[in-house]
């Protein structure tokens, strides 16, 4: 499976009479896009706004972040199961509006969380402060239930990313990168001396506001399976996860999974990147046993020497993480786990809700309880009144002057467990 990603750099975003990409600027026709989104009967109103790196802008509550992409050749279309038919993606050519993003906001619940600051202290902690973003503020029709609102927001975000992505279909990319996964036998023949490494990607799948979709299917109803790493780059995995802003994997993260990219860049040099497995994080303990058993069997079947396991979320998923780690290690395969920490504001407490001696190689995305101070911003996109109630905030977090004192977990992507952030520990 071979995919070429063609990057079209976006350095500015503007509203304009015609949606297009011109001279590295993304122009958006407000009217046309709003009309497209209002086709969803559940949506009462759509407001579009822009946020650029360095501006004094705070976006909250952030639901999802999505990168605009388009399939230029190869089977299927971007976001299969949602915007395109369910055909296997991950081959041919895909164009990426690099440096652009669609950000969805909306108060699905009264304590809806997630802050992106485009400048100041907060901007350092989120990779999304560096993107030229189109923000969707979407209000549901009255009486719409939380799960229906979540779905409407999710679809609006995907549709917008698809709409913007299409603008790049016939453009000449500035850079093209090729990613290829060999068959298991070809890999053995080509790199007989290199260690065989796999990646287990854990997906949040606990229920309302905690879901992830694979080719349109709810991940909690799936068994662990092998999936081509390039399939992720075409949007085979979509986030429906709205809780735990700092360590949820947005759709942007799935499209740009850094573990996948790093494994590809080391492939054929220091290791043989054999394959990617996805697994879930369910509430039911029997599901955890079943999924972790299956994951370990897959790793053994592939004859792996080492496995990287990344987690999403905290608490319940810690049990899945440790089960995966223990069972894969029990097959004689070395593991490295990637997680983040809730170690208290002083960083002194135990970081995870579960532990095992087999988990002796751990990479952290940072301590979500660390207290940070955010300056006031000139402009807020979305709504700010929920800040006192969000995870990691507290009554009085939001000061009258617009400054915020809260835990790092308020910031979208700050302690991401794929490592798509700047924090870690030694």
């Amino acid at each position, binding site marked *: 499976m071979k995919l070429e990603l063609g990057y079209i750099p976006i350095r500015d975003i503007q509203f304009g009479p015609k949606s297009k990409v011109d001279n590295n600027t993304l122009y958006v026709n407000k009217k046309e896009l709003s009309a497209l989104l209002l086709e969803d009967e559940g949506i009462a109103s759509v407001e579009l706004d822009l946020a650029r790196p360095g501006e004094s802008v705070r976006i909250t509550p952030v639901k999802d972040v999505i990168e605009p992409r388009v399939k230029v050749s190869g089977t299927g279309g971007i976001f299969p199961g949602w915007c395109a038919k369910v055909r296997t993606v991950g081959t041919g050519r895909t164009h990426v509006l690099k440096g652009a993003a669609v950000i969805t906001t909306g108060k699905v*619940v*009264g*304590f809806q969380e997630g802050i992106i600051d485009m400048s100041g202290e907060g901007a350092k902690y989120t990779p999304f402060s560096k993107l030229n973003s189109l923000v969707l503020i979407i209000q549901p029709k009255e009486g719409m239930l*939380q*799960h229906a609102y979540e779905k409407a927001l999710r679809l609006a975000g995907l549709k917008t990313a698809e709409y913007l992505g299409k603008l790049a279909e016939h453009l000449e990319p500035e850079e093209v990168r090729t990613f290829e996964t060999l068959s298991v036998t070809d890999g053995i023949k080509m790199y007989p001396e290199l260690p065989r490494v796999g990646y287990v990607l854990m997906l*949040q799948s*606990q*229920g*309302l*506001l*905690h879901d992830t979709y694979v080719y349109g299917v709810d991940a*909690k109803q799936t068994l662990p399976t092998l999936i081509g790493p390039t399939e992720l780059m075409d949007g085979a995995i979509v986030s429906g*996860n709205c*809780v*735990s802003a700092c360590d*949820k994997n947005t759709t942007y993260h799935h499209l740009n999974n850094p573990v996948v990219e790093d494994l590809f860049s080391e492939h054929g040099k220091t290791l043989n990147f054999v394959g990617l497995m996805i697994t879930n994080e*369910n*509430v*039911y*303990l*029997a*599901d*955890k046993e079943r999924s972790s058993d299956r994951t370990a069997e897959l790793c053994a079947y592939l004859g792996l020497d080492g496995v990287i396991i990344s987690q999403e*979320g*905290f*608490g*319940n998923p*810690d*049990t899945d993480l440790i089960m995966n780690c223990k069972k894969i290690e029990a097959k004689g395969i070395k593991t490295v786990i990637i997680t983040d920490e*809730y170690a*208290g*504001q002083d960083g002194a*407490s*135990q970081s995870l*809700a*579960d532990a095992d001696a087999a988990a002796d190689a751990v990479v952290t995305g940072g301590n979500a*309880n660390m207290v940070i101070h955010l300056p006031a911003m000139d402009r807020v996109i979305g709504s700010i009144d929920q800040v*006192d*109630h969000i*995870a990691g905030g*507290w*009554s009085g977090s939001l000061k009258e002057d617009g400054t915020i004192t809260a835990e790092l977990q308020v910031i979208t992507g700050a302690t991401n467990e794929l490592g798509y952030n700047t924090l870690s520990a030694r």
Partner: protein
Amino acid sequence: MIITNNPLVRSTYENAHVILFVEGNYREVLVKARDLVHGRHQLITHPLMGSLKPNETPYRSVVVSDAVLDKTDADSVLIIEEAILVFDRFIKTARTDRGEGSTEKMKEDFREIDLSLLSSALSE
């Protein structure tokens, strides 16, 4: 058997499952579940389900087996004891505005999320 302090879970499932309703907080639900686990009931759902941290929601529901096992299930004991330790660690940073002190609208959302997470397990 569902151990819960969430009235919405009680009203949804009282005709379909055995409900042990706890007139108390999140921790008291965990402690009740622990007592039952030590009484040889098996833990069915993870006590820390959901990404809402233990100090950031007033409601909790945990499912244990109706049947009593021949001996105590060691995995269940480890998981429920660990969950109580995690709760005690988080509650040091108490969030009354997301607990008993949260607005009625927020409590409604907390009840709905707790119910929905539980339903996703019970529907299997």
